[in-house]
């Protein structure tokens, strides 16, 4: 895409290890470097490690859930604790693992891919990150206060959430803080992309990853305040007698759901659009062929984002809306399948007549398309109201959103990590570890979640700590898959750590099919890159 030259490239720079040139560009040493840094690469790294730690914390909770569900009957915990686990597993995975991981990618990649020296608001960037650990602390500490952590579901539905102890207040404050962090991060990303592109990089020349993040950032700025607003109303209902969501006081519990899902549905696209972006970078590289339908990809992303704001009530098909509202939300939801389909077709066409090779990033990208599409199918099934009436709040929905979030968002993140690790660390990762990680994840993921479709169809509700004997076998299979999936992630940790510590030296452009700007920088990328912007032709 671009012919460039970076006359500031620190050819020698292991930015990380030897913080070479001190005063002007080098980072301070030790803890202070991380506390005070305003460097997009440092901050990106912190985001990624934070997100991985939260992934492990949320994963331990999933472990607990699946262990209790391994057999019928209550074995390991009380139902209350089980509910706390499901609630916080969801919340931590969404707000602690997936979202910060994408922000980490944005920090590392957006400036390098648009030829900018750093993010627009470098100090605010530091602040957006450092808000996260206190929020995480609140979420985890809630388990140790009287009454335990919130146990009303990650969706906070009142009146149940009004019944909870102070763990619920901690959850609400954590969401406030995480929301503030996301909003600041998004403003930063929008400003960076709109103002700091290298000369010649018009909007329609931006890499797709940058495009998807631009659109995602707008969605975030739109919906995070709505979430903050509604959980604040919940807080005042809990403590100051406002009765927004209490019918006895003139309020309406269903209003909460409308406001929550006005945030919640765009939120699911916030977690998938950047994943689309990553996959759209990986596929052309390893197919050695340009992305098919670049502009229709951009338009599809934008239309998904717009449509995602008018479909929220498909999460509420059983609350008893009037028939016209039911039908409106059904049609709007089904419409989203069109631009989503366009993406899948474009990816297939990108691979068609390419010259493909199957390094780990490509494996994850193909795994993504395959499994995400299955999640898209079950999404359409859920959109068809009569069928959704049967599957709403059952394991079928659990299967649906894990297909789009785990084999969707998470697989794309894994692919992205392997893809850019050489640029980040200056070393090639261990290809066999990467492949092992992919295949283990692929197999165990399906063992865990495919059977959950059957459980849901046959009538097993979600969020239950126990089940009828009929469901025993599939639950055991699912639990075994989950343990396997969890353990497989240690392979990922090993592959990443190994790559950071050493390995074959990475060339500036280790992938022969890559075309975006970051590959014109040396590997590892110098602490400050593109101080003089490249010129994009």
């Amino acid at each position, binding site marked *: 895409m671009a012919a460039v030259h970076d006359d500031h490239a620190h050819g020698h720079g292991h930015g990380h290890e030897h913080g070479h040139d001190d005063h002007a560009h080098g980072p301070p040493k030790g803890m202070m470097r991380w506390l005070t840094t305003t460097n997009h690469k440092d901050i990106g790294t912190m985001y990624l490690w934070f997100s991985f730690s939260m992934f492990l914390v949320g994963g331990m909770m999933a472990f607990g859930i699946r262990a209790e569900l391994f057999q019928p009957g209550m074995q390991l915990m*009380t139902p209350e604790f089980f509910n706390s686990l499901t609630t916080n597993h969801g919340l931590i995975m969404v707000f602690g693992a997936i979202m910060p991981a994408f922000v980490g990618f944005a920090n590392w990649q957006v400036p390098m891919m648009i030829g900018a020296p750093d993010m627009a608001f470098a100090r605010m960037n530091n602040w957006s990150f450092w808000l996260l650990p206190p929020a995480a602390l609140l979420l985890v500490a809630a388990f140790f206060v009287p009454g335990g952590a919130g*146990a009303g579901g990650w969706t906070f539905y009142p009146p*149940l959430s009004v019944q909870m102890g102070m763990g619920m207040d901690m959850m609400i404050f954590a969401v406030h803080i995480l929301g503030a962090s996301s909003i600041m991060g998004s403003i930063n990303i929008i400003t960076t992309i709109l103002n700091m592109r290298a000369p010649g990089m018009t909007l329609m020349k931006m890499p797709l990853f940058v495009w998807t993040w631009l659109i995602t950032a707008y969605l975030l700025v739109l919906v995070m305040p709505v979430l903050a607003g509604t959980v604040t109303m919940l807080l005042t209902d809990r403590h100051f007698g406002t009765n927004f969501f209490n*019918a006895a006081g003139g309020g309406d519990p*269903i209003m909460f759901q409308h406001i929550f899902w006005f945030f919640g549905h765009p939120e699911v696209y916030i977690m998938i659009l950047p994943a689309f972006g990553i996959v759209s970078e990986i596929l052309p590289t390893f197919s050695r062929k340009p992305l098919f339908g670049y502009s229709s990809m951009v338009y599809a992303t934008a239309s998904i984002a717009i449509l995602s704001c008018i479909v929220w009530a498909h999460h509420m098909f059983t609350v008893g809306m009037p028939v016209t509202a039911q039908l409106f939300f059904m049609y709007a939801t089904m419409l989203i399948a069109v631009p989503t389909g366009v993406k899948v077709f474009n990816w297939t066409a990108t691979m*068609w007549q*390419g010259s493909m090779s199957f390094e780990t990033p490509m494996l994850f990208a193909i795994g993504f398309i395959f499994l995400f599409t299955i999640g898209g*199918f079950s999404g359409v099934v859920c959109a068809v109201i009569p069928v959704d009436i049967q599957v709403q709040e059952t394991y079928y929905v659990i299967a649906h959103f894990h297909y789009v979030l785990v084999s969707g968002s998470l697989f794309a993140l894994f692919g992205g990590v392997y893809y850019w690790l050489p640029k980040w660390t200056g070393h090639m990762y261990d290809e066999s570890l990467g492949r092992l990680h992919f295949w283990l994840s692929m197999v165990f993921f399906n063992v865990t979640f495919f059977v959950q479709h*059957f459980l849901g169809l*046959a009538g097993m509700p979600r969020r239950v700590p126990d089940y009828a004997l009929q469901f025993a076998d599939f639950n055991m299979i699912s639990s075994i898959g989950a343990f396997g999936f969890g353990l497989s992630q240690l392979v990922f940790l090993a592959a990443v750590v190994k790559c950071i510590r050493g390995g074959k030296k990475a060339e500036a452009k280790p992938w022969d099919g890559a075309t975006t700007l970051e590959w014109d920088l040396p590997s590892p990328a110098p602490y400050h890159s593109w101080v003089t912007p490249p010129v994009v032709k």
Partner: protein
Amino acid sequence: MSSKAVATLLGTLAIASYSGMGMAAADPYQLNFTPPASGIASQIYDQHIMLLWICLAIFIGVFGVMLYSLLNHRKSKGYKAANFHHSTTVEIIWTVIPFIILIAMAYPATKTVIAMKDTSNPDITVKVTGYQWQWGYDYLVGEGAGISFISRTTTTLDQRNNKAPKDEFYMLRADKPLVVPVGKRVRVLITANDVIHAWWVPAFGVKQDAIPGFIRDAWFQADRVGTFVGQCTELCGKDHGFMPIVVEVMEPAQYTQWVAQQKAQSAAAVVDVNKVFTLDELKATGEKVYAGNCAACHQANGQGIPGTFVALDGSKVATGPKAEHINIVVNGGKAGSAMAAFKHLSDVEIAAVVTYERNAWSNMTGDVVQPSEINAFRK
């Protein structure tokens, strides 16, 4: 083949497959919906099958192409990459075709939605109330009007905690099922007492959230007799998993008999509110009421769960003034408290359970609360 022909074909296949299922004991490898027992549920079943076929066809189309490409267009085979990167025609085609497929999916769904929402002309109307964690049924209109009862799981704590064996009905039976006649239109008015629950019977294709302070409705018409089971499908607190919905569908004649029986029972059960009971009578009844309503949180031994549910053994309320004790049972705890209101229990039940709590464990107040006191309190 026209979409109608496809639908007919698939429908036939589907009917053939589920009519064979009968009412056999639950299949641990059940892959599809529960066999339908109402017109709406059959429509849903068929639409789901249709959706599966459509998805399968698209899946084979897309991934067939991709698989071919993955196998052939490889660098390791020396395949040279082409360089095309868009084609407006192709892109328009694959935008329009999915659109048409979606319309084909939406059309039958729309008809079903409209039918589901039409709750007019019921033969029988029943009010369903979700409580933490049981269901209340009040027959309002039609044959059986006036009947009213609470329906609770028959699964015991010992079964749950693996101290007693579980059978195939584990978690799936209630002491008193909702009883309805076959072939009659039943309208259910659904609400809740405390938090949101959801009333679901898969075989009838009915699922409706039960929302405190609001009444929503749904309807069904069972097309065969039998026992049909569902579970609460909205997280409603700790025992959300343990509030089954059981519907017993009977022949109309049998239903008439059942109604007569219920009426006779409730006539016999009506007691003069001024009747005076002894302490032992009240304690005996109270212990049962306690086990059914209170033990889930406060525990059978009255110790509660530290940090979550207060102990009643030795509590200030259960050993202090009677009025405060009666008040919290009838009206529930302070706003936001997990203690629900139990005003739906009868005067005798409340009198009994309050008496029991004041004289059980180490509580030795010796107080006797008579139904007349509850009756007076309510006024």
